[in-house]
């Protein structure tokens, strides 16, 4: 007899896809569903040069010890990250009503925020875009938010933002609902609202009393400019919203496995900072006591050092440029082959998300016949495309489309 005999196996489709790829013995197999991670033109992970520099400095600093960080994290990191997101001229920063809580990357920032909103503020309803990152619902549900609703986002028909649908859904949301917004480079559509559309979204949310919870996982990957990609968050803050923003430094600093994140909290009264911090302290304490130091030290080092910050911006531009080039190459190759349809979506999308336009059964053919692995949604990560494989991929997509 076991306590565990009724436990069912939960299968994760991405993992299963990966296992299938792993077992595939075909010589030229290619996995394009590599998750949200950057690859260089050789198809390899890339540790940012600025990160290696920072890491070596940190390793050689004999003054550093391993004493527990404060529960809310390394202050020089959270202060810098918060100020960097909102801008040092941000009113919230100046008025000392914005602060950061160091988190185990963006996912955990979302969880901490959700747990606060449900346990401390008693919120129950949250909205996420259709589609959205697969973990949003799980993080919020496990954080205690009882009711998940979707707002329209992607239109299959127009291959673009369903803006009217989005506004309509927000307009009918109950007052106090939490709305998860992708600050930029929406995952998985790669399609962002324009600046004007953001203004309108903000207007509706203000009128309806909705609470914005931004997810900024890809800051720097939408435009190549780290600061420009903060537009939406800064717009809401300037308009006087209270908001949460889950920052991740996984992709833009390439620190994936060091779990560097920051939950930015913007309140509209500085007197509320202490009570709110104290409640977050309890939430963190009851989850993992205090956060890991290594990645936050590296990020802090870079954020607080002008020289290194500039190098960082360069490294991000390198990644952005390569991704942009691959989009161009892939689109070009497909158009040259005469693949039917409009391929402009590939170069219109921002961030890592890329659409093949293939249906689920066509994706299966792509896997079976060409050993090229994409998600059954037809989406894949543009970073998996290199100058060496772009033609192969284009030909395979063309073949599946036309056969």
């Amino acid at each position, binding site marked *: 007899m*076991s*306590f*565990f*005999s009724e436990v*069912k196996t*939960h*299968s*994760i489709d991405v993992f299963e896809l990966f296992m299938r790829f792993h077992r595939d013995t075909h010589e030229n197999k290619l996995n394009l569903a590599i*998750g949200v991670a950057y690859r260089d033109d050789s198809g390899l*992970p*890339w*540790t940012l040069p600025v*990160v290696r520099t920072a*890491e*070596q400095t940190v*390793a*050689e600093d004999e003054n*550093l*010890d*391993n*004493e*527990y*960080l404060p*529960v809310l994290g390394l202050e020089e990191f959270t202060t810098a990250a918060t100020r960097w997101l909102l801008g040092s001229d941000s009113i919230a920063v100046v008025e000392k009503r914005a602060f950061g809580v160091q*988190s*185990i*990357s963006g996912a*955990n920032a979302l*969880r901490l925020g959700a*747990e606060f909103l449900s346990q*401390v*503020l008693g919120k129950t309803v949250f909205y996420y875009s259709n589609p959205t990152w697969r973990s949003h619902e*799980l*993080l919020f549900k496990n954080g205690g938010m009882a009711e998940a609703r979707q707002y329209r986002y992607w239109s299959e028909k127009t291959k673009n933002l369903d803006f009217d649908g989005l506004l309509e859904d927000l307009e009918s949301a109950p007052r106090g609902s939490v709305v998860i917004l992708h600050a930029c480079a929406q995952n998985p559509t790669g399609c962002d609202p324009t600046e004007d559309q953001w203004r309108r979204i903000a207007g509706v949310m203000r009128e309806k009393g909705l*609470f914005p919870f931004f997810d900024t996982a890809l800051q720097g990957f939408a435009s190549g400019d780290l600061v420009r990609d903060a537009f939406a968050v800064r717009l809401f803050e300037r308009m006087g919203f*209270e908001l949460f923003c889950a920052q991740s430094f*996984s992709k833009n600093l390439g620190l*994936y*496995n*060091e*779990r560097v994140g920051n939950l930015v909290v913007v*309140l*509209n*009264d500085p007197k*509320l900072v202490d*009570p709110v911090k*104290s*409640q977050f*302290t*309890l939430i963190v*304490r*009851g*989850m*993992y*006591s*205090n956060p*890991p*130091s*290594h*990645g936050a030290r590296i990020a802090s080092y870079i954020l607080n050092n002008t020289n290194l910050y500039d190098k960082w911006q360069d490294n991000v531009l390198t990644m952005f440029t390569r991704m942009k080039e691959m989009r161009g190459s892939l689109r070009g190759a497909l158009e040259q082959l005469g693949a039917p349809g409009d391929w402009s979506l590939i170069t219109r999308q921002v961030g890592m998300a890329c659409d093949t336009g293939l249906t689920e059964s066509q994706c299966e053919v792509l896997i079976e016949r060409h050993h090229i692995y994409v998600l059954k949604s037809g989406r894949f990560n543009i970073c998996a495309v290199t100058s060496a494989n772009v033609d192969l991929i284009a030909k395979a997509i063309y073949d599946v489309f036309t056969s």
Partner: protein
Amino acid sequence: MSWFCDVELGPPIEVFALTKQCTEDTFEQKVNLGVGAYRTNEGKPWVLPVVRAAEKALANDETLNKEYLPVLGIDAFSSAATRMLLGEESPALVENRAFGVQTLSGTGALRVGAEFLARNLGKTVFYYSSPTWENHKLVFKNGGFLEGREYRYWSEKTRGLDIDGFLEDLRNAPEGAVIILHACAHNPTGCDPTEEQWRQIAEVVKERKLFPFFDSAYQGFASGDLIKDAATVRYFVQQGFELFCAQSFAKNFGLYNERVGNLTVVLNNAELVAPVKSQITLVIRGMYSNPPSHGARIVSYVLSNPDLYNQWRDNIRTMSSRIIEMRKKLREALEVLGTPGDWTHITNQIGMFSYTGLNEIQSLHMVKKHHVYMLRSGRISMCGLTPSNVDYVAKAIYETLTTLS
């Protein structure tokens, strides 16, 4: 108007508030006996030499990248950690029905374990010792347990274990309740059951079909011997129990802030490993996606390198010996002064902490008058004692007990 205007100021966490107070105190002879973090004889934090060596090696290893770890962590790390706890020849390992999950230190292991037990096994009741580490309750409550109950543990009167109360409370526990047990070096009392007492405890746990959840934060650190400090957990495994054990590498590796932990899971059927792993995977994905690499890589590097492993065992012996030495010195100093009471418990207890027996008023007096920072419960951390402050502390305790009896 703000969404947050009704948010109440939460209670401060005593041990951190204490450290803050101590840091801000300008009194020259102040002593911090609050937080359980190792200090050298000079009162300084100690980054283990093996850790520095591992860190430098890792920083220079160009083959390492920052790719996401698997959700359940670095396999080499969690296998080594589980092996270190259960012993290579453990029947559970030989039969492939035990595994480890990398977690955010011991707290993270407790939380992930608790959340799994509540969500997937529908468990609602947990038991914790009276007293216990102050965070146990919060972790299990936030993990989804509905009801926390105490089992008697510390006897004020005997300054030792209330084994009869302990066993009685377990006998009255509902079937299937989860019971938090300290693998060794009980926090905060430093008082552990004897081998024979553990046998009795195991019998009742078996009888009442309770689920043991061990907290092992001090393996190696308590006695200096990794095997000795794991004896209780190993005994339970040998007795055929399914169990969880939250392992922390904060103290024994001095890696406090890198959050290195492992949740060891022992099942009684190898076929259950896959489903259980898949559900724990979901719990973690819904909490922080996947764990941080740095600290776990360091531990893994050391555990898998025979040379460094031996150096590490030396480092552990250094730390535990210093603590044992400080216990001796404190007891001696107290006895020499003729301090009222029996102080044998100071050297009978094991690990970082000691329940001095001082009550709340006396403990506050220690802080206020003598600038010796300790918890209201009477708990002191031995790590804060050094050859240069132990006499001062003893005198402070003497003054306190003779003035405020």
